[in-house]
């Protein structure tokens, strides 16, 4: 699959994700991770290659996809509730799923992402970075999507907030089981959230490796202290270093003894 000249070209992307699966894609900057998500969303078209979403071309697929950007990208002139309601106002449908009144659905989704109804009337400028990202998540969830495409949504947040949102994202996914494609730079985040982690290399973007993450769901914060978690993080990091072309591809991996020392 190749793309335009200005954008990272992709080659040898051989990747299939099952319905209801949550996978992460990690890779060095500029390897085309975001381009891949936009191709899947049907926002860009590939010049060659074949990409199907639910058996159809991304643009023509009946499958409902939602996209979460790195920036919350909220409309400053709308309130929190107004921003969450936006997708319901667009397109021909204009009507919400499940025969729920849009207002009720908006309120429910706002509460689902951990915001209060008191926050619903606020403007984006009154919220913290973490809260804005929650609104952005709510905006993508409100359409009850079948596929969620997340492009480094928590990259701008501090680590504790990121962990907290990882746990909540995982809970949201576990409850609804949409198909999740999560792009990130953060290895620990990828391992915590995913059933499989793909490592991409750059120019041209290729899938180098696919690593199974076998932990059960729902996963708890304690998992991060698990030696097996540390081992898998090390494995993914090793592949990522190779993808980035850093010498010394073998990384010594923290084991049970190392964690006990600490």
């Amino acid at each position, binding site marked *: 699959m190749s793309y335009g000249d200005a954008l990272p070209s992709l080659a040898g992307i051989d990747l299939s994700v099952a319905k209801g699966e949550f996978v992460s894609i990690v890779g060095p900057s500029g390897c085309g991770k975001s381009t891949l998500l936009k191709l899947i969303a*049907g926002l860009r078209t590939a010049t060659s290659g074949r990409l199907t979403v639910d058996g159809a071309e991304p643009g023509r697929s009946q499958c409902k996809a939602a996209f979460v*950007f790195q920036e919350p990208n909220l409309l400053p002139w709308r309130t929190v509730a107004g921003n969450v309601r*936006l997708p319901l106002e*667009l397109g021909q449908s204009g009507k919400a799923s499940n025969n729920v009144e849009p207002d009720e659905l908006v309120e429910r989704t706002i509460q689902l992402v951990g915001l209060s109804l008191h926050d619903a009337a606020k403007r984006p400028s009154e919220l913290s970075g973490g809260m804005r990202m929650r609104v952005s998540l709510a905006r993508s969830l409100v359409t009850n999507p079948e596929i969620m495409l997340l492009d480094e949504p928590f990259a701008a947040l501090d680590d504790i907030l990121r962990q907290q949102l990882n746990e909540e994202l995982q809970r949201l996914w576990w409850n609804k089981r949409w198909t999740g494609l999560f792009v990130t730079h953060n290895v620990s985040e990828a391992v915590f959230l995913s059933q499989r982690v793909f490592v991409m290399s750059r120019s041209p973007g290729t899938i180098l490796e696919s690593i199974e993450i076998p932990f059960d769901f729902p996963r708890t914060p304690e998992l991060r202290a698990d030696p097996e978690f540390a081992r898998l993080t090390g494995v993914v990091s090793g592949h990522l270093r190779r993808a980035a072309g850093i010498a010394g591809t073998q990384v010594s991996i923290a084991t049970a003894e190392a964690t006990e020392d600490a």
Partner: protein
Amino acid sequence: MPDAPKSKTALLFRSVAPPLILFVVLLGLWQFCVWWFELKPFLVPGPIRVASAAVSTFGKLAAATKVSAAAALSGFAASLITGVVIAFFFSQSRLIRISCYPYAIFLQTVPIVAIAPLVINWFGSGFRSIVIITFVISLFPIITSTTTGMTAVDPELLDLFRLNRASRWQIWLKLRLPNAVPHLITGARTSSGLSVVGALVGEYFAGFGVNDYGLGFLIGRNTSQMRTDELFAAVIASTLLGITIFGAVSIVGAFILNRWYDVK
């Protein structure tokens, strides 16, 4: 800090007092020069003479100001509506934009004084021609600022709208138009000032032959009749009119920005 202002009133006083004192000093200097150099009143009348002319012709002045305000606001309103409609078409296609833009620039570069006689030729003298001249001069800033605001939309937000299968009209109404409002306000501030210029130039050329004349006509007549004190009074009235319209538009704009765009 020993001389830190203690309250808002003190702060206001400290920012208002200096220009006010300077104003009084300048008025005094002006009056002094008129008296010292024995300047002829039809060349340079003193401030006292101007003030008394303003008081004695107050009714005439107020009526003319009202006529000019009506012309300026009508032209401004027309340019606001037309400008947004033109910007709508400009925002729809790059081809339309690059095809029409040179002609929009024509509006900006043609000297208003040069086309005023033409407008009068076509539409006759009076209020209608004056409003058209005002409209022409204040249209350009609205078009450019609003077009910029409608096209300079975050590409990720466009992606978001497209992903949710938004129609062109929905993208315009819910994204491009609200995104353009802060730009439109900047353009409207410029245009509001220009609209007073347009109204006065229009009245200067086309304001004759009517009972309700405006400040532009009054200025022309006072000049030809060497009533320089009344001329000064009319100039001051025009300035006040300009400040008032510009100030009102700025206040409305600041309110909108503060309420919906979090610009403090």
